[in-house]
């Protein structure tokens, strides 16, 4: 892009040239040629002002959670040839809060030998997977006659996990701890609770030969159903509110879910996840902590019905996190409770986020009436202190301090 300075120089050269023609003074031709030559040189050199600049971005941690401080380094160097001069750069860091993303930098020189290092710290503002945009560069090298713009692609992806707040007590998961429990239902346990006629597919070693001899037909042993207590986390992904702000019920629901699973993980309780975002496929089997975080870093609102989520997974302990509760949630939850599931429901109070009315309170009331454990999470200025740590033993609605 031609600048006003170049135009001024060209006009000056032309004026001197006209005067040279008028006066036949050779030096005026020389002055005109020198000034014109400078503009030409400026144009020639400006074409390569931003060429050959390469960079890399590095950060200090493989695992980064929302709210963590991340140290980043941007290294710039010129591949070969001459150094680049007077380069203005705009580094957009997508991890940072929106008002802190843009970093305007100025490099008087980018040499071919020693890289320039721009080290900065950033607080990961929000969970998610982030891709750094192109690094924009501008230069008026060498004398500001022409402005060149360019961009540098330094491919950098960073996955930010959701915020995890350590929970000190969660009654549902504290009740049975890690002990096995046996039910009288037939299953795949080790304790024999009876015999029954042989069915196709029964193992031969499970044949109860004495009863077979006694009855004259092939009888098999029937075993009790022995189950490892497994947490089934259900994240209702139905949410039609605004998610542009990091403080919205859905984000908080994700944080609640992760914090609960973290507690279970610390207590060695296996867990499964049932969530409705079809873009983030989730296994119905038990998950590792890392796999769980990968999913929860990416999960976004989706329209999968809540009762489908209830039936999709399995687990003896169910924690359902509902970011946008309403009375429709009651029926599937009550049904699950009726089936004997150990259930705790976490409701996000949308009214406290400034959106919607307080339907959470209505649902909460209905669930209490049905003796289903539930709690309401409201937006407060300190999420960590307000969540779970001071849950009343009777699981009544939680009121932040």
């Amino acid at each position, binding site marked *: *892009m*031609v*600048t*006003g*300075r*170049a*135009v001024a120089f060209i006009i*000056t050269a032309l004026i*001197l*040239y006209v*005067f*040279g*023609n*008028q*006066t*036949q*003074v*050779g*030096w*005026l*031709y*020389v*002055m*005109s*040629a*020198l*000034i*014109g*030559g*400078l503009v*030409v*040189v400026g144009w*020639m*050199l400006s074409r390569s002002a931003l060429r050959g600049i390469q960079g890399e971005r590095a950060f200090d941690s493989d695992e980064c959670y929302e709210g963590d401080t991340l140290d980043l380094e941007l290294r*710039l160097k010129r591949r070969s040839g*001459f*150094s680049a*001069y*007077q380069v*203005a*750069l705009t580094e957009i860091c997508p991890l940072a809060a929106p008002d802190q993303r843009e*970093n*305007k*930098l*100025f*490099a*008087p*020189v980018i*040499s071919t*030998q*020693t890289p*320039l*290092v*721009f080290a*900065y710290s950033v607080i990961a503002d929000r969970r998610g997977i982030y891709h750094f945009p192109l690094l924009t560069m501008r230069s*008026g090298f*060498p*004398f*500001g006659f022409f*402005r060149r713009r360019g961009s540098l692609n330094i491919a950098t992806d960073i996955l930010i996990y959701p915020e995890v707040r350590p929970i000190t007590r969660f009654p549902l998961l504290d009740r049975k701890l890690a002990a096995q429990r046996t039910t009288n239902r037939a299953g795949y346990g080790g304790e024999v609770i009876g015999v029954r006629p042989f069915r196709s597919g029964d193992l031969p070693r499970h044949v109860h030969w004495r009863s077979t001899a006694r009855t004259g037909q092939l009888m098999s042993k029937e075993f009790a159903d022995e189950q490892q207590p497994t947490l089934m986390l259900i994240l209702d992904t139905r949410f039609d509110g605004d998610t542009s702000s990091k403080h919205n019920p859905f984000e908080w629901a994700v944080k609640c879910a992760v914090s609960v699973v973290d507690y279970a993980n610390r207590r060695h309780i296996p867990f499964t996840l049932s969530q409705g975002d079809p873009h983030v496929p989730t296994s119905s089997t038990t998950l590792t902590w890392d796999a769980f975080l990968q999913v929860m870093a990416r999960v976004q609102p989706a329209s999968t019905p809540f009762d489908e989520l209830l039936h999709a997974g399995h687990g003896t302990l169910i924690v359902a996190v509902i970011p946008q509760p309403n009375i429709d949630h009651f029926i599937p939850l009550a049904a699950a409770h009726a089936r004997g599931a150990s259930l705790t429901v976490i409701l996000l109070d949308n009214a406290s986020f400034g959106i919607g009315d307080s339907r959470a309170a209505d649902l909460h009331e209905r669930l209490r009436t049905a003796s289903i454990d539930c709690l309401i999470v409201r937006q407060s200025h300190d999420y960590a202190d307000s969540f779970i740590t001071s849950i009343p033993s009777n699981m009544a609605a939680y009121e932040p301090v």
Partner: protein
Amino acid sequence: MNLFKRTKTPTERTPERSLQLRVITFSAQAISFTAVAYVTRLWWLALIGVGVLAVGSYYAYRYHTRDQRIRAVRLGAFIALHLAFGYLLFGIFAGVPYPQAQFAVIATAIVTFELYNRLNLFSAFGMGLINLYVAATLSRDVTFGLFLLLFLGLWLAFMWVADTEDGIKRSAVVLRAMPKTSRTIRFSGALRARIVQITLLGLACAGAIFALTPRFVGRPLFMPLSIQIPIRAQPSAQIINPAFQLIQLEGVTAQTESEYYYGFGDALDLSYRGGLSDTLLMYVSSPAWSYWRGYAFDTFDGLRWSQSDNSFRTRSSRARGRFILNSRPQNETFVHSFYIAQDMPNVLWTGGAPTEVFFPAEEIAQDNTDGLRVGEAMRAGTVYSVVSEVQQHDPETLRAVDFSSIKQEPGIEAYLQLPLTTSARTHELAAQITMASTTVYDRVIAVRDYVLTTYPYDYFPPPQEPNTDAVDQFLFVDQRGVCEHFVSAMIVLLRSVDIPARFVVGYGSGDYNPITNFYEVRANDAHAWVEVYFPRQGWVAFDPTPGWTGSPQTGDIARWALSDLFGDVQLPNLPIAQIVNLGIGFIGAIVPFIVAAGVLIAVIVVARLLLKHAAARPRLPYALNDPTRRAVFRSYKRALRMMRAPRASSQTVQEHAELYVSQYPGLAELAALTDTSAYRPQPPDAADEVRARSLSRLITRWKTRT
């Protein structure tokens, strides 16, 4: 459509605090002053200019914010600038040396007091460039290039530093290169390499542009003409040569070198000897190569050349020293200007056939050989311009010229005259040389070539023997000589076969400097050559002297710096003067309307400004309608000015005074007095007025002391 982006930044208008930029600007301006002083030799001008520049630069840096500026200094600079302009006008007519150069330097130095922001500093470079322009028009050698390169280098450094500082100002973070290691040393080496690259590329591009830029040689709007060295004496036929007339004792050769050619006189004696120095006499700016012709001799007595007819025509100047010699030129014309560097004879040198002369005199004389003279010897510093017709003759045309009635041409007998001392063997030689030629032109060429190729040039030939014919001695005895001998021999040989010819004196073209675009003419470029008359074609020049061009006709008009390379590419002349004159004529017709419209617009603008000012001006409160109330208030306002603590419109007098009462004794009382004087029913008495004035003085003194 936005074709370009203005690089205007907030820093352009904000006060410039960068000492580095100011130092660079100061240096560049000082260099431009030195360049002007160098070409004008007015070194005192550079000293004064740089001194004022230093003071102005310091002042502008020290008081760079608007509220710090001292009104008196601004007023002083304004007045000084106008005085300098007056000095320029005075100098133009009073003969002050280089008034335009003096004004450029002084004005630039004065304006330095106003260099407050970045834009001002850029403007300072523009003014420096104007100084260099002035110096360029006066420069005659390549030393000026050094100043030019230095100035441009500083300008580029200025832009580099300014851009870097702007980048730093705009960015929150400045990335700086690496700690000081051995690599840092390599980095600075890289910067040096970059500078070398830019320098070499810049010079290459500038050289290419210089070489490839066409030169539309047109008629300048303003002919170079020195008006500060006017010649007031009446012209005469006499040649006034400032040279010491060399006197040759018979048989003795003068071995000294003179700056002045002994041929520039009323007569030229072939018995004179003497070398010519290498002193530079004049610069000639000309788009075409040419000999610089003085005048011609027609009569030869065997030893001396002289003019048979000393009468002359007086040519009077039209406007601005313009003399029209031929209002209807038949051929292409070109303008050549002469810059006299040493005192010279009162001869106007011309190239080709002059049609117009621009010379600082009221009258010039034109003799019968088309030589031009003025009333007194030309002083160094004289500048004049000549418009001449290109003199290029086609050999075929000259061959076809009919010479049958040559002797009927009026006045031709003077150019066929031969001295009585001409020997028979000279006549025989002439007949022998021209025997094989069928046309007059071929005879001329045969004679020229014979003389040119037969005899060697000798700067110090043997002395002229007494009572001998100089041509005979040259042709048959010495058989070597200087240009006068060759020319005399050729003329005598031509006249022997009835071809009219004459002896022309002047200067060779001199050495051409493509950078300065000047032909540098030195004392030893003084020369003589032959002009042969061809009916209806006029006088045609031939040069029989070895080492010079045989046919000294006007060269092709140079259209490029390196016209030798691009000689075949012809470009049109741009008749700029005519175009401008047409424009001026048109403008002249509408000038009354333009002036009337301008006056009307000015009246409307001023009226609107006055109305706006009157509307914005707060009406005097009733309380200040009384003269004594106003007197007290004036004292109060004077005190505020000295305190440099203006009162905000939202503050009452008392509120304002409370802020400063601890610093200025008497302020509280003055404020109270002002308040009561303004608002009490009866106006203040004389004692109050005196008291207010004394309190104001007290504050003034206190401020001055502290």
